[in-house]
């Protein structure tokens, strides 16, 4: 395991559900501190890392954003020695039975999500798919202790230990979107040996899984000239191959559609081809469903592009991806940023587009 895989492993081991990102933000702060000139936290909790341009005159800025929040569960009700839960983010309840979790009460309490077995259901409900009304969390704590330690609103995160697979693949529960946080970190590492012509804002956003609140507010605060959202996209899976899925381990995706500025798309493709970096074009017929949606419409509007890292089994307790694609996305970002020169802004968007 190299440094970036070790870092990603620790990111995947941290909670940090939407709206409660502090545990994962602290890890990113530690990693980014030596790679940036300034680190601040926004009023909503997003992390802003600045690499300053090496110039005596004011320079434009580019913002690279990846959300750090994760999906999970929240305690809804205490029922005897069991907890009933609701969802934070888009979770298919069918993945929940048998899932180990951590209940973040007054202390961290291990538990299991389980379902009411058919034996205890009337025959018409037997065999039906797991559904939140028939799911519960079992911590094994006695009723009184549970009442003292846990209350409605407490977070419940997946306790899926990350796994490392032969050939540079990794699996775990919040690759969406900590894989992209790792990619931005690769980019920052690559940029260590460069002086930048533009200011670079690396942003780990909050609440993407809710409704992009972090990206919206950080883009407003930073008002960059260019916005780049890095998020995960669907990889081909055993038994699943459509135009919405991309080969795993064969490079990041570059988005195309309303959310992506054509000039930026051209530039990214051109760079990828120059450095012989494999990529796929991801069609986004309507929106991208990423932070890019919020960044693009911030203030007077920001030219935006969306990059994707293909992962399998998105929004399940074990997502799986390729470390090579994470590194490639990081290199592509770094190469784009070093291509930005003092006068780039004057020429980049003058092709008659948009």
């Amino acid at each position, binding site marked *: 395991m190299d440094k970036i895989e070790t870092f990603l492993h620790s990111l995947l081991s941290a909670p940090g559900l939407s709206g409660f990102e502090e545990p994962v933000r602290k890890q990113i702060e530690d990693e980014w501190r030596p790679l940036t000139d300034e680190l601040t936290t926004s009023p909503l909790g997003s992390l802003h890392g600045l690499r300053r341009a090496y110039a005596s005159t004011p320079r434009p800025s580019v913002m690279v954003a990846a959300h750090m929040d994760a999906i999970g569960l929240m305690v809804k009700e205490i029922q005897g020695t069991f907890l009933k839960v609701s969802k934070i983010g888009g979770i298919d309840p069918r993945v929940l039975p048998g899932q180990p979790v951590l209940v973040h009460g007054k202390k961290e309490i291990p538990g299991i999500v389980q379902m*009411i077995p058919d034996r205890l259901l009337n025959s018409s409900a037997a065999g039906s798919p797991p559904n939140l009304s028939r799911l519960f969390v079992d911590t094994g704590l006695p009723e009184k202790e549970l009442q003292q330690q846990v209350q409605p609103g407490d977070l419940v995160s997946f306790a899926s230990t990350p796994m490392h697979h032969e050939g540079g693949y990794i699996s775990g529960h919040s690759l969406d979107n900590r894989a992209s946080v790792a990619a931005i970190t690769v980019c920052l590492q690559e940029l260590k040996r460069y002086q930048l012509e533009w200011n670079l804002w690396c942003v780990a956003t909050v609440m993407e899984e809710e409704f992009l609140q972090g990206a919206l507010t950080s883009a407003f605060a930073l008002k960059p000239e260019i916005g780049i959202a890095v998020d995960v996209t669907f990889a081909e899976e055993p038994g*699943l191959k459509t135009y919405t899925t991309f080969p795993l381990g064969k490079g990041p995706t570059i988005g195309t559609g309303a959310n992506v500025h054509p000039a930026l798309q051209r530039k990214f493709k051109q760079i990828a081809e120059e450095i012989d970096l494999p990529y796929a074009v991801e069609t986004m017929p309507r929106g991208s469903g990423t932070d890019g949606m919020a960044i693009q419409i911030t203030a007077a509007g920001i030219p935006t592009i969306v990059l994707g890292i293909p992962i399998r089994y998105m929004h399940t307790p074990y997502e799986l991806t390729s470390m090579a694609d994470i590194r490639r996305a990081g290199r592509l970002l770094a190469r784009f940023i070093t291509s930005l020169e003092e006068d780039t802004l004057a020429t980049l968007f003058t092709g008659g587009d948009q």
Partner: protein
Amino acid sequence: MKTPQPLPQNLRPPLALLERLSNAVGVSGDEEEIRQIVQKQIRSFVDEITVDALGNVLAVKHAADPNVTRVMFAAHMDEVGFMLVQEEGEGSFAFEPVGGIDERQLLGKPVQVGKERLPGVIGSKPIHLCTAEELHHAVPQKNMHIDLSPGCASKAKVGDFATFATRFQRNGDALFGKALDDRLGVATLIELARVNPGNLEILFAFTVQEEIGLRGARVAAYNFQPDMAFVVDSTPAFDLPLVQEDEENTQYNTRLGAGPAIYLSDAGTISDPRLVHFMVKLAEEHHIPFQFRQPGGGGTDAGAIHLTRSGVPSVSISIPGRYAHTPILHASLEDWKNTLHLLNLVLLHASRSILTPDR
């Protein structure tokens, strides 16, 4: 209620051993890892250990008098799991369950495959790409895949066994782990091997292939020719929430924390009432909490043992466990202690006179 007598000083629930046994892998037909642990642990406490043709570990503590009562204790070493049945390329395999597993427990679960314990994932299609219709149905196991990742394509092969990749964890009284059915029983028998009983021939059978039809126990009992048999297993505790909070749960089978579960009857055995009475009396005299497992379906190695040769008086006693045959079971340390305590008394007090008069 009187306080139960404390567990004898020499007996301790061997938690570290249970952790090792729970984390070890031994799917039915592939019990070698468990067999190694068992043999190593009991070697210095028994007079004889053999491994039979199926892989059962048969261990004997001899009595001085060879004509004395022969008492068999059985616990199964195997656990439910999977077998890779078809290679699909790029490190993906179709698989089938080994033993009874509810397919709704599988999506999104990590597994370990083969002797090298390669990490794999039973993948689940992203919710974003499922149709509303798909979301309303459980995914059939036949449509699932074990994904070892494209980098592992050549390392696993059809026929490899797999099981859940779960690590044992304890939180106070709560024991969480895979395969507690029946590594709890295995650990119990290992601890009991330390007890020096009265004048009894003690026969320990650590059996194979329980989960696919009680196949190990059958030949173990044939070999041992016991006068009576006690089967130590784990049985489900269905003391769970219901859809309506005011409903009464009449199908709980057993309750966690209510003590060892003595069987009266299950799908394969009607317990020998003399052995039931013997255990109940011991539990009551020594104030050890116990419960009767609700009569009903399911079964243990007793189903095979009591039909061996001309018949063996048999009874089962189980440590209750929630969520059997899923990635993580939940059992109670207190229940385990009480089971150990009661079985220790069984060892000290069993005699042929229990079996008179006739059944």
